[in-house]
């Protein structure tokens, strides 16, 4: 599957199918710190992603000025 990681605009390819939670773990995201998006749908972490999917992983963390 082809994955775009935002906001760092990183492109990643992973072979085979995976649960969304496993993809997040492989990319180094802790649970609850990124959304998994397929097309224009939010994918729950327990859902299976297929080998030919195009996926967006979008970090939810922001911060800086108090």
């Amino acid at each position, binding site marked *: 599957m082809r994955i775009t990681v*935002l*906001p760092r605009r990183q492109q990643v390819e992973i072979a085979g199918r995976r649960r969304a939670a496993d993809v997040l773990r492989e990319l180094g995201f*802790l*649970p*609850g*710190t990124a*959304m998994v*998006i397929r097309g224009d*749908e*939010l*994918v*729950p*972490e*327990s*859902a299976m992603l297929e080998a030919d999917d195009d996926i967006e992983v*979008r*970090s*939810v*963390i*922001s*911060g*800086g*000025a*108090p």
Partner: protein
Amino acid sequence: MKCTRCKAPAQVQLRAHNANFCRDCFLFIFQRQVERAIEKERMFRRDEPVLVAVSGGKDSLALWEVLHGLGYQTTGLHLSLGIGSYSDVSTEKTAAFAAANGLPLITVRLAEAGMAVPEVAGLTRRPACSACGTMKRHYFDQLAIDRGFPVVATGHNLDDEAARLLGNVLHWQLPYLARQKPVLEPTHPRFVRKVKPLFRVSEYETAIYAFLKRIDYVVDECPNAVGATQLVYKEMLNRLEAASPGSKLTFVQDFLSRAQPVLPAATGDGPPQTCAQCGMPAFGEICGYCRLMRETEQKRERRAASGAA
């Protein structure tokens, strides 16, 4: 996986609440949490005009959307900070959201006043986030009082509050801990009430809300935030949360209900005086903003003089 509320297929898993929701139930629960926070903490009434500080990010735009949807009288306040293309995109997205929803928006461009955040931080050699925070607070306070708004709402979420709490506890900042509340009542005639209606919802929930509502927010991180201490605290708290879901909510809620009420007596931090320069509240002869601007002007003049010599 089924929705905890209606048993339809669930789209959102919230480990902290041990619950799953479909799109519609998640949106309902999120809005209800914000509405309950406003009512329980007595943040503002429906007949009070609310100035919403809007950066163009997920939290502030989600907050504005929820408040507008709940029928509150809102006006957006956006500060264009002059941080290159990041600020340009933030200003564009904020303006587009306001226009699409028919909402009033006040935009202040700091660069046009010669006070872009990178220049101020660079000249005064202060951390960008520190200079930015001082400038934002000043403009929020001043515009609110000058335009007659009794309350300013910001998009601080549970993660922001937990990270701030951790930082304040690590350094035992008692005056800051005493003021860390979801509602801050004015302590000076030129302060207005400051409220954080999202203080009980995580940034994961806020991001999901913004996404499901198709809010076009700035996904990019502020370039100045790279390496910010607050992000280190958030990373630590997220590790705790992964091991023990609900930790962040418990940390903040228990602080507010059990520790915070006993703090004011211990701090000895008196009410602010009046800034001799701008008339806004100050802890000292002049306020932090005027000190920062004075220093910026001095450094700018010195640089111009050395360039001319």
